[in-house]
């Protein structure tokens, strides 16, 4: 990590000696992985031919009406609880009115003044500093369709519209403007994603668009209490892009101020290739969304019993899980943090533990060799071929002395590549450790005969000679002899002969 990026612009000095501070708030959109869309029974499946996942309702045909998918409401409450929000007892849907060709009705069903969740927070850590980031609200809304341009939006002679995504349920999570550096913003976004994936309501894949971050960024002279004019940054498709875009934007805004200019309130898009944010100008600058209660949908009245029912379904969240690993399993805080970073990894770890209750040993293998292989292959643990059963099978072979720890690393590699279990890899590669004492003794006798001078050295008191003899035995058995047995039998034989 570049040190200047890490500290962000919070302590950055302008050319004129002015110190600036950065104010960032994030709006995160999460696509829920329900079976059907939020207001109709069309499928939410990713992919598919253009305009193949649509019905009269999500296509906005004349006369259709929306009906709320219960799962969406329950997941909104679930995620709200996970990010420490208060669940509203009364909530409603509103129409957000604006024209865009990817919107079938030219209004979006969303929530305006009475969102389902309010006032939460997340604790983050950036650059070793802990900080609490406030969450203003979480609300439900429907996604829009997708526009396909020939080239870019500014150069294309026409655009094509696909409404497959229109009506897929979204949760929008709006933070307070509590982040004071791009790094903090990234830490917040990553933490939020971690929790979203833990709750199981979304894949949280930024690259596929199931998690989308927009940022409101402004800068102001240090000590000023007035917020600077903000720009809204869109189109950041990874956490890295988020941090880069914000870093660029902060620098840009400071540059504008340094030159005596003024920051314009506008929407800007991140151009990943060029590494810059660009202004998105539109004919209509005014955002007058004319929100009003959607007359087609009735209010939500959420009683405490329902909230408690949903709270009972809340899975153990990363912080609690990590604390448990330290307290109950005796892992280090660092190990616990690594293991719980991704829910899939922690789930894997615990699945292994259920079969093989040696936390430290399992943790070492999961975080060490297995993680290395997964990273190299660009896979997540639930995509890999080494299931918990197979990893445990490997550990049991070591325990039984059938292979050495060193051999086990090679075995794991083969398991990872072929998908075979440990026993099969060991058998097929002829790697099985020789534990048959008769066989080892035969080799030992041969080695002693061939190395009479070394035996003499040993007897003369040169301890290192024993190591050489062990090495010779291992070499003759191509490393497959059980080292403990070799040591013991070699000493015994030398004593007998002596």
């Amino acid at each position: 990590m570049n040190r200047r990026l890490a500290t962000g612009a919070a302590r950055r000095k302008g050319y004129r000696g002015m110190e600036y501070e950065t104010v960032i708030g994030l709006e995160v959109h999460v696509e829920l992985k329900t079976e059907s869309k939020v207001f109709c029974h069309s499928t939410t499946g990713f992919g598919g031919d253009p305009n193949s996942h649509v019905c009269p309702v999500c296509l906005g045909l004349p006369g259709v009406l929306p009906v709320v998918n219960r799962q969406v409401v329950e997941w909104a409450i679930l995620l709200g609880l996970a990010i420490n929000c208060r669940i509203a007892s009364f909530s409603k849907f509103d129409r957000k009115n604006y024209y865009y060709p990817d919107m079938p009705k030219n209004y979006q069903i969303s929530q305006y003044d009475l969102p389902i969740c309010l006032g939460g927070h997340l604790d983050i850590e950036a650059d070793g500093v802990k900080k609490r980031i406030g969450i203003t609200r979480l609300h439900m809304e429907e996604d829009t369709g997708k526009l396909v341009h020939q080239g870019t939006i500014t150069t294309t002679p026409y655009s094509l519209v696909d409404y497959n995504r229109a009506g897929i349920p979204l949760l929008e999570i709006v933070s307070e403007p509590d982040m004071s550096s791009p790094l903090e913003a990234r830490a917040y976004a990553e933490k939020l994603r971690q929790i979203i994936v833990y709750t199981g309501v979304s894949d949280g894949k930024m690259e596929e668009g199931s998690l989308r971050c927009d940022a409101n960024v402004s800068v102001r002279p240090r000590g000023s209490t007035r917020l600077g004019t903000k720009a809204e940054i869109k189109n950041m498709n990874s956490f890295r892009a988020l941090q880069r875009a914000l870093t660029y934007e902060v620098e840009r805004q400071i540059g504008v101020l340094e030159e005596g200019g003024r920051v314009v309130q506008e929407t800007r898009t991140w151009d990943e290739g060029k590494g810059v944010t660009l202004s998105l100008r539109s004919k209509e600058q005014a955002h007058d969304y004319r929100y009003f209660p959607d007359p087609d949908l009735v209010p939500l009245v959420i009683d405490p019993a329902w909230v408690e029912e949903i709270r009972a379904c809340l899975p153990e969240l990363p912080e609690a899980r990590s604390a448990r690993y330290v307290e109950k399993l005796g892992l280090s805080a660092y190990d616990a943090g690594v293991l719980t970073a991704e829910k899939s990894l922690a789930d894997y770890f615990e699945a292994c533990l259920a079969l093989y209750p040696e936390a430290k040993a399992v943790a070492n293998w999961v975080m060490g060799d297995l993680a290395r292989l997964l990273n190299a292959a660009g896979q997540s643990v639930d995509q890999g071929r080494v299931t918990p059963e197979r990893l445990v099978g490997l550990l049991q072979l070591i325990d039984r002395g059938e292979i050495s720890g060193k051999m086990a690393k090679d075995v794991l590699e083969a398991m990872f590549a072929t998908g075979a279990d440990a026993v099969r890899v060991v058998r097929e590669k002829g790697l099985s450790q020789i534990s048959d004492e008769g066989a080892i003794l035969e080799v030992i006798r041969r080695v002693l005969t061939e190395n009479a001078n070394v035996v003499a050295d040993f007897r003369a008191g040169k301890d290192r000679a024993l190591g050489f003899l062990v090495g010779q035995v291992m070499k003759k058995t191509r490393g497959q002899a059980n080292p403990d047995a070799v040591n013991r039998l070699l000493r015994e034989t030398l004593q007998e002969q002596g």
Partner: protein
Amino acid sequence: MISEKDVDYVALLGRLKLTDEERKLYTGQLNNILEHFDRLKELDTAEVPPTAHVLPLKNVFRADRTGPDLAPEQVLAGAPDRDGRYFKVPRIV
């Protein structure tokens, strides 16, 4: 009073292109209509809750189940312009 400028703004929000004549006509008519509506200001409604729905319905949900989608030809049958399975529109900006 609504000015012609207000009428232009409202027309843009509602995506209506007005001729000069229409702008004048609607400005006059909207002012006339809204004048009648100013009577509402006589009523003290500070303590009155708004009625968005007349029926006291709440929590109407559907189960998270999928149903049949429209066949592609039905989706695009009425499209003023299309390109394969896409709807086609002129440039955005």
